[in-house]
């Protein structure tokens, strides 16, 4: 057993039978189940927990909760490293490895603390004044140095092996916070029968009740209420769960920490779970946060918030001191003074006020507490640990005395935790009677209760909790009768604050406002003098409140100081904007399982498994995994696709075209509908015939293309590009549902219903005849652009004679579950013709040779004329985009339009994206166009490309330069017609 010198022999809410071993900077230490890292470290006598951000001043824990600015650690090792975690909210688990941050070579002996010597240089605005002005260039040089000297822990560039999860949830009543008010609200709503979710960021329910003596009467109340809540099946209690933010529609994001369960990622167990919870009603019972007092050297280790000290004492059984000074501007700190005194600590209370209530005075006297009113701390002695304080009178601030102590407990009053209530945009407002900001209101169906509303008294918290819980339950129709709940007996000292903040007049040491970002009173004064008076400006100029603690202990004090500087009343002040997350959350938790292959869903063709099993190499194309090339044709993509192109140009190949968008268009007005959405004519298309169509957007640019086949008088089979299938579907639904509601047309996506395969090459007909014996596939029965619907063994097939490659080709459509069988049947029955599969790379290359445009050319900026398709547009009917297509700028002769490009330098490569220049141009700037698609041509034995070029084919025959600056390449090429093979189309009509 490792000695824990500061652990009291009894008391606290610890499981003393369950000792937990952990380490700090590799040094083994011991704590108990129920400890936080902070309480365990304090029990082990570790007071110095870090160095401050800018000045590398030694720091100890300020708090015992989420507001902690100083005690940040790097947890875990190697891949599991997690920097900047507050030790005050880190549950102690066996084997926990913690490291202190921001000290080199160590926090105990920190060479960087020489920053202290140049401290005058590091005041507010220092970085920007020095490096962003005329000497801006210097910033580039100094930034890495500064960032190394200042800063927090470091992350690691390794994949986090832990697992995270996101999930969705719904509830009728959400109660945030499980203190007095929250427990009561949850109980009231739960008793009424509502579905309740109660979230508490702590490991235990109770909130402020956990500061009370673990053997006292308040503990009975806490346990009784918890037991009743747990007995209600409609109440879901989530501990270790933080409400990160409030969003629209009563949605709250929660993060649950599960390290205490030692989750096993191999078994799919998540380390953290982020829940998106939609609540019909929300009760905020988020409590309040204690503020520090501001005096010189108020950051020394051993200067802590008063309630935190009480928590360490009563909850964690940590005795921090022999002699303590409790300094305060309100009554709440007396509870700490009394409890310390009961544990035998010599206590001096230094109260800034002139007088205190007789009741407190008497009680202090009874506990032998020295009480000094009209007194304040004007300096703190000691560096790595408090050794004493210098006291002055509040009114005069003359040095009155020195007092030895090893602990300073301070209370500057309490700030209600308004953050979540303000996320929706409702600004908090100031209440001078309690010297604090409270919620400025609540959205519909949302309520506040307890300390959040400024009701610090026990009876009020219970009453508000009860009311809020009942009203929240009633929103979902649950019986809202009041139920009885006797309040707990607490040794409450009350609040009784007078002024929010007393500033020391004599400044003989840094008085910190924001501990985490090292912002002092002086920094705020400088900022004010330099004109940064709006709180939003003040914040950004001084970085106050911009640390991982988001200024939970500093923002309000800073507002007070700024108001005092301006000579205005604080009550008119506004806070800075509160934004989620309330406390830091890891990206891992937010991402959940949407990482790696699950970053987004993967779409697979019905032939996917076949491709994988038969040498198909896959490539990701949008959501799809597509067959890219096949091993039969080579061992690399570069060699295989050329072989596959040869196959299609000389024999016959089979390609998977299932990813094409497919839409079933039916109805008496289907022909009219197609006439409207396509630029070319469809109503005159004969039954059993297909046509290539181009859709324009309203602005007259090309939107999508594809073929549509007329299957019957009122039925069409439309195909779209793979990439735009979803867009086209939504677009035509938009037109039918919002504009053309008079048309009797129904559209259904059948992309997943039908698989598609292309049989292409001079031997395509012969191959299909082998596969479909008895079917007449002759040119007269199934001419170019013809369609046949047949059945094989009862399975419907659609054969459409279309060619993307430029060869004789057929597209065969089959219901998806039959795709593999049909594919294998075609391959086996046509094997005498040496049929083989070809992949996406060859498909894309064949179409370039043929000059068919595809997604790379249809970039939503081009017109029909740009693509050489202007003649397709109907002169006789209206169609979407017709009007704006006529805009003069779309017909300017110098528009970039489609050209073919032939490489003139054998042995050199053309690259997609190359910038095109005329032969005489200087090679710089944006050029006259660019290459959209490029391939090796098996027919021409050279690289060819499609591209967009200023003035287009007016420049046919001219030599150009294709520049690729990323590789410093320049290749000579020539503009040609964008059709490299069979310009008359004899092959596809064969």
């Amino acid at each position, binding site marked *: 057993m490792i000695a824990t010198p500061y652990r009291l022999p009894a008391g606290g809410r610890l499981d003393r039978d369950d000792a937990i071993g952990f380490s700090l900077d590799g040094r083994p230490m011991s704590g108990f189940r129920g400890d936080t890292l902070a309480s365990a470290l304090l029990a082990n006598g570790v007071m110095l927990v870090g160095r401050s951000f800018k000045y590398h001043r030694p720091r100890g824990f300020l708090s015992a909760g989420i507001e902690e600015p100083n005690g940040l650690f790097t947890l875990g090792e190697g891949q599991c490293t997690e920097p900047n975690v507050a030790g005050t909210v880190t549950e102690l688990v066996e084997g926990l490895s913690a490291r202190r941050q921001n000290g080199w070579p160590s926090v105990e002996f920190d060479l960087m603390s020489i920053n202290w010597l140049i401290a005058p240089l590091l005041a507010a605005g220092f970085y920007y004044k020095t490096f962003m002005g005329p000497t801006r260039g210097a910033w580039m040089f100094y930034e890495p140095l500064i960032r190394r000297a200042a800063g927090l822990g470091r992350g690691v560039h390794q994949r986090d092996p832990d697992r995270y999860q996101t999930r969705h949830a719904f509830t009728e009543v959400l109660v945030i916070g499980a203190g007095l008010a929250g427990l009561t609200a949850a109980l009231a709503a739960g008793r009424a029968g509502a579905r309740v979710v109660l979230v508490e960021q702590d490991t235990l329910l109770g909130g402020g009740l956990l500061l009370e003596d673990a053997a006292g009467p308040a503990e009975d109340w806490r346990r009784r209420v918890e037991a009743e809540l747990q007995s209600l099946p409609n109440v879901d209690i989530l501990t270790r769960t933080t409400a990160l933010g409030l*969003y*629209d*529609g*009563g*949605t709250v994001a929660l993060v649950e920490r599960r390290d205490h369960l030692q989750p096993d990622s191999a078994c799919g167990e998540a380390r953290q779970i982020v829940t*998106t919870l*939609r609540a019909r009603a929300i009760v905020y019972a988020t409590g309040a946060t204690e503020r520090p007092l501001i005096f010189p050297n108020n950051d020394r280790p051993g200067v802590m918030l008063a309630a935190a000290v009480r928590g360490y004492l009563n909850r964690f059984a940590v005795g921090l001191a022999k002699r303590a000074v409790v300094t305060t501007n309100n009554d709440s700190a007396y509870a700490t003074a009394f409890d310390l005194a009961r544990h035998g600590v010599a206590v001096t209370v230094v109260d800034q006020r002139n007088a205190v209530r007789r009741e407190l005075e008497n009680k202090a006297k009874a506990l032998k507490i020295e009480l000094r009113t009209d007194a304040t701390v004007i300096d703190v002695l000691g560096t790595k640990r408090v050794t004493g304080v210098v006291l002055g009178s509040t009114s005069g601030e003359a040095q009155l005395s020195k007092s030895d102590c090893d602990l300073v407990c301070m209370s500057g009053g309490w700030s209600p935790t308004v953050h979540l209530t303000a996320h929706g*945009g409702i600004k908090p407002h100031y209440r001078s009677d309690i010297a604090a900001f409270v919620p400025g209101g609540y959205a519909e169906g949302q309520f506040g209760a307890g300390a959040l509303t400024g009701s610090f008294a026990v009876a009020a918290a219970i009453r508000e909790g009860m009311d809020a819980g009942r009203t929240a339950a009633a929103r979902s129709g649950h019986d809202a009768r009041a139920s009885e709940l006797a309040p707990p007996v607490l040794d409450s000292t009350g609040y009784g604050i007078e002024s929010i903040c007393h500033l020391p007049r004599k400044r003989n040491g840094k008085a910190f406002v924001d501990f985490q970002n090292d912002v002092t009173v002086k920094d705020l004064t400088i900022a004010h003098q330099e004109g940064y008076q709006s709180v939003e400006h003040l914040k950004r100029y001084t970085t106050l409140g911009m640390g991982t603690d988001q200024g939970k202990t500093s923002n309000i004090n800073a507002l007070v100081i700024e108001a005092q500087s301006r000579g205005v009343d604080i009550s008119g002040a506004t806070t800075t904007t509160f934004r989620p997350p309330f406390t830091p959350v890891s990206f891992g938790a937010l991402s959940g399982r949407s990482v790696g292959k699950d970053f987004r869903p993967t779409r697979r063709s019905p032939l996917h498994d076949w491709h994988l099993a038969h040498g198909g190499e896959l490539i990701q194309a949008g959501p799809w995994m597509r067959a890219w090339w096949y091993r039969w044709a080579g061992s690399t993509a570069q060699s295989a696709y050329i072989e596959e192109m040869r196959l299609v140009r000389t024999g016959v190949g089979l390609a998977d075209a299932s990813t094409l968008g497919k839409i079933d268009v039916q109805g008496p007005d289907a022909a009219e509908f197609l006439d*409207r959405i396509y630029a070319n004519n469809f109503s005159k298309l004969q039954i059993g015939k297909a046509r290539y169509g181009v859709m324009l957007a*309203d*602005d007259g640019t090309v939107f999508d293309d594809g073929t549509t086949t007329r299957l019957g008088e009122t039925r069409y089979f439309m195909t779209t590009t793979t990439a735009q299938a*979803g867009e086209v579907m*939504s677009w035509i*639904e*938009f037109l039918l*549902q*919002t*504009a*053309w*509601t*008079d048309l009797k047309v129904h559209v259904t996506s059948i992309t997943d219903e039908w698989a598609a395969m292309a049989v292409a090459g001079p031997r395509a007909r012969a191959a299909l005849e082998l596969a479909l014996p008895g079917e007449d596939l002759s040119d007269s029965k199934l001419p170019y652009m013809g369609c046949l619907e047949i059945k094989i063994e009862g399975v419907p097939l659609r054969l459409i004679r279309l060619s993307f490659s430029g060869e004789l080709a057929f597209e065969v459509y089959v219901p998806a579950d039959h795709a593999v069988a049909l594919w294998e049947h075609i391959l086996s029955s046509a094997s005498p013709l040496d049929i083989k599969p070809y992949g996406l790379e060859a498909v894309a290359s064949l179409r370039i040779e043929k000059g068919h445009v595809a997604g790379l050319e249809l970039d939503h900026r081009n017109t029909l004329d740009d693509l050489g398709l202007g003649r397709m547009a109907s002169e006789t009917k*209206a169609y979407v985009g017709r*009007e*704006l297509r*006529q*805009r003069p700028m779309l017909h300017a002769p110098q528009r970039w339009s489609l050209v073919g490009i032939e490489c003139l330098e054998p042995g050199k490569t053309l690259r997609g994206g190359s910038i095109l220049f005329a032969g005489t141009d200087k090679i710089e700037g944006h050029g006259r166009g660019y290459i959209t698609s490029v391939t090796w041509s098996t027919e021409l034995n050279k690289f060819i490309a499609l591209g967009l070029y200023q003035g287009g084919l007016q420049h046919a025959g001219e030599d150009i330069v294709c520049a690729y600056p990323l590789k410093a390449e320049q290749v000579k090429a020539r503009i040609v017609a964008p059709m490299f093979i069979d310009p008359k189309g004899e092959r596809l009509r064969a």
Partner: protein
Amino acid sequence: MLRIACPLCGERDYTEFRYGGDADKRRPLHGTADLKAWDDYVFVFDNPKGPHREFWQHVVGCRQWLILERDTATNAVGVCELARALANAREDSRR
């Protein structure tokens, strides 16, 4: 999380929907040759602060285009109805 009450499917996260722009803009009648009307419809947008009626499509649900009242300043949502109901009403008013 903005929640949209689809008149057919019930209340859902906005992530089930796609946005479709200002629903008070009148699409010129099909075939209208008035370039100015198309120009206004396609390119000229108000950017109101406050109440707004806008198109949303329930893409992973019933695929209906809807018109949602949403306050662009507060994100508060109001009535949501099928777009075609409104389109039909407009047709009637033109007759």
